[in-house]
């Protein structure tokens, strides 16, 4: 699924990275616990989270994730934005809650759950 489709499905606002909306993502992970995210390597994944701090972007960076969706209209800080831009990441924010956002993406065809370890 392209990041552009994620944005449409979630009716999300682009916070940064609008140059990269045509990148493909193959799996997704929804969590507020970053160590849980770090436990499962997936290829070209999107992270859905309600957590807002710089370690969210760092975690995504370590995992080579290409997009982060902030649910419940959470607003990332300027520091997070700078980090995301440095790493060519797309940041999106949606009004939807975590459950609904994940459900929409899954129903939309983003079901990949490939572990690369």
């Amino acid at each position, binding site marked *: 699924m392209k990041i552009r489709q994620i944005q449409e499905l979630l009716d999300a606002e682009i916070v940064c990275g609008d140059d990269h909306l045509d990148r493909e993502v193959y799996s997704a992970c929804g969590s507020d616990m970053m160590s849980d995210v770090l436990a499962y390597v997936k290829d070209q994944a999107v992270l859905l989270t309600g*957590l807002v701090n710089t370690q969210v972007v760092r*975690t995504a960076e370590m995992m080579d994730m290409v997009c982060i969706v902030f649910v419940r209209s959470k607003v990332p800080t300027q520091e997070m934005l700078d980090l995301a831009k440095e790493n060519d990441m797309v940041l999106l924010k949606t009004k939807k809650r975590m459950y609904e956002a994940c459900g929409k993406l899954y129903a939309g065809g983003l079901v990949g759950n490939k572990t690369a370890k």
Partner: protein
Amino acid sequence: MSEAVVTLHFSVDGEDFTSAGQASVQVKKSLRQLGISPEIIRKVSIAMYEGEINMVIHAGGGEADVLIYEDHIEIRLDDHGPGIANIEMAMQEGWSTAPDNIRSLGFGAGMGLPNMKRYTDEMKINSVLGEGTHIVMKVNL
């Protein structure tokens, strides 16, 4: 054993949770410049990142060294924190002594040490209560 081809040294600041992970970011960049495969880079940087976070949460910071050999990468983490009372327990997923304020930041789920083991080919922990913890991890190339 042959000598390390490249060595990297970092001081991990224990005061600032926001900047935790900066050493791992640097390691990631250096490994990329050396042409190491993305899968190996990911393993090394995640293991190191979890280690760095642990040092900030539990030990007030510490030292991190990354040694790159012909056939493997070694990560050494040294701190002078309180030490780990029960390493066997600490290695279990979900077991944590992290305070609530750390949990609200997305860490302290008891996955740090298990994740470090998961992504490395070898991991040794040497911890003395009241003195500190020394961890050596190896990732084969």
